[in-house]
């Protein structure tokens, strides 16, 4: 695998993980912008441990999961009180807060950033393994009781409450799990880019994540698997004249999809049809065999 491709795959995996992190709260009817904040925490945890005590990749990922859980849980307690637009906007503030805090912590490199994160030669393969594991987990999660409870909250919170769903607790669970995904994404990101700054985890990053989420489709977990490589390759593999327009393309796509195709490129219906097609194929095969 060429180095450019390895970097590309790993970065796409990072984006998919973070977008999944944003997708979980969306299942519960929340637009949560704290994913980039937890990414910073996951990235700095992994980067710091790898740099100072030379912890290996998988242990760093586990450490990132733990810090993600903790630092996702704390704001989740607060956001369980709010809903809708208030959650969306005030969670955005977390990005600015974490940036300021990291800038003031000297052992994390302050404004000068954290350098010297170990090189992991098999990183793209590791990233793909993580992607499959987390993807499978997410698939189970969305089809579990918790997943159905979230869907009920998203459709009608009052009805969900009368049906015995503890909306507050479910919101906390959603935001915390979302943070785990984002933290792992952040950790993989840190190993990929190997120099991280407080400014890396910025508002622009959030916009990329949101674009990938909305363009890919925010009702299934599969949409982003298409939208992330597609959108990122505009920046990389397109001729320069197109690259110059990448911001217009990102924003334009976002607007067009939101207006005309509210479910995104990959819709629930599409997934069902594909499912049906393959089950049909599978059944016919077993019948003939």
């Amino acid at each position, binding site marked *: 695998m060429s180095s450019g491709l390895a970097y590309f795959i790993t970065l*796409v995996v990072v984006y998919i993980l973070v977008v999944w992190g944003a997708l979980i709260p969306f299942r519960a009817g929340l637009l949560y912008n704290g994913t980039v904040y937890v990414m910073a925490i996951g990235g700095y945890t992994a980067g710091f441990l790898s740099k100072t005590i030379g912890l290996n990749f998988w242990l760093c990922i586990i450490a990132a999961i733990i810090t993600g859980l903790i630092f996702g849980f704390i704001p989740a307690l607060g956001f369980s009180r709010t809903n809708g637009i208030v959650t969306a906007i005030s969670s955005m503030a977390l990005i600015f807060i974490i940036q300021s805090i990291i800038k003031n912590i000297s052992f994390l490199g302050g*404004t000068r950033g954290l350098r010297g994160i170990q090189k992991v030669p098999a990183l793209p393969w590791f990233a793909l393994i993580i992607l499959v594991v987390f993807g499978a987990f997410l*698939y189970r999660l969305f089809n579990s009781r918790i997943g159905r409870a979230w869907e009920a909250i998203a459709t009608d919170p009052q009805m969900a409450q009368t049906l015995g769903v503890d909306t507050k607790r479910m919101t906390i669970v959603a935001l915390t799990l979302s943070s785990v995904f984002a933290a792992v994404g952040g950790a993989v990101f840190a190993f990929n880019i*190997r*120099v991280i*700054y407080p400014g890396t985890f910025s508002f622009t990053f959030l916009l990329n994540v949101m674009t990938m989420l909305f363009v890919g489709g925010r009702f299934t977990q599969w949409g982003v*698997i298409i939208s992330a*490589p597609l959108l990122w*390759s505009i920046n*990389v593999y397109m001729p320069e004249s197109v690259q110059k327009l990448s911001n217009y393309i990102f924003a334009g796509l976002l607007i067009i999809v939101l207006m005309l195709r509210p479910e995104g490129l990959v819709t629930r219906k599409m997934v069902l049809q594909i499912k049906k097609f393959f089950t049909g194929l599978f059944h016919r095969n077993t019948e003939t065999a």
Partner: protein
Amino acid sequence: MKKVLALVVAALMLASLMAGTVLAEEPAAEGGEVAVSEWEIPVLSAITGPVSFVGEPAIWAANYAAEKINAEGGIEGVPVKIVPYDTEFDPQKGMQYITQLQDTALFIGGCVAAPVCEAEAQILYEEHIPNIGSYVSTALDEYAPYICAYMGDSEILDLELCKQWLEAKGYEKLVMFYSPDDTAQAATVERFAQEVPQYVGAVEVPTGTIDCGPLAVQAMNMGADAFWLGCRTDEAAKCCKELVERGAVESGEQIYATFAAMGAGFLEITGETAEGTYAYNMLDVDCPEATWQELSEAYKADHNGDAPTYPPIQGFYNMIVALKACFEDLHITGDPAKLAEEREAIAEWLNNSPEIQGCQGPFSWMNGVMQIEAPVVQVQDGKYVVVTME
């Protein structure tokens, strides 16, 4: 069933990636002594995005230098082609290009922004790829000999020129304004705090501050009589204006701005308040050198009559000129089979180079640090005038 679905999705994803790499591969060239039919020099710069006003002129200068070299017969008789890569001031994109280039490139030029550069430097060092970019001295030590700076080291120059200024004017208390978002400036302030006895404190100017009045007042509270502006143009200009208007300084001479503040627009925002302010700009806009005058005319023709004021213009021009000198001196062939040894040789040559004729006079590198004169200027009647401090 689920597995099948997952497999299909994975296959689709891989297919899209493969399609991408095929597009990105470059054809190999063959020839006589020089093994390429064209020197393709990849140059990274923030051509669009928040610092495009510096990045675009930089690429322009690289292209200008290449055209000029080609008109005079190229390098070893082979024409040069600049292949621009737009980082958009985003380390993610910078790293993407570096990883794409790391397997094949003989040399990588750029980029113009410190955060992107530091991300690149690690890979350049590991892969032994020579590079000229915007580096601070600590990075130059760490990743020697593969990286060089295209500007005189701002930390060392800042310190030297600032000391001269304080001595000459006899100021006793220095306050530094700097942007906490800029790693290079943070390093400079740390250094000042240790080495300049007149240093009394620093004021952090967050990028995008709307009203710099409070910051000026904060500096005045420290009882300073000398002010050093290291933040970006917008904020530096506003701070300068507030300091003068609020009476913190008796004359503009008590203010000293670095090249970061010297972008176009500084004089427009400050208006008359900047009168007397000292600055150094890494390049002399009105340099009488014929090469510079020619470049300046060409630049104005392409930029609606704006003068070339940004230091990377000189930096990127000199970079390409240095490359020509280096390739001809070492008889570089560009043969992919000799990639590793030629990279090594170029890096060694550039890191401690002989004297090269740049667009504003001679320059050279010593341990990756560019040795070049940086003129001190003073604002007189709304214009920058080159002065000496004594």
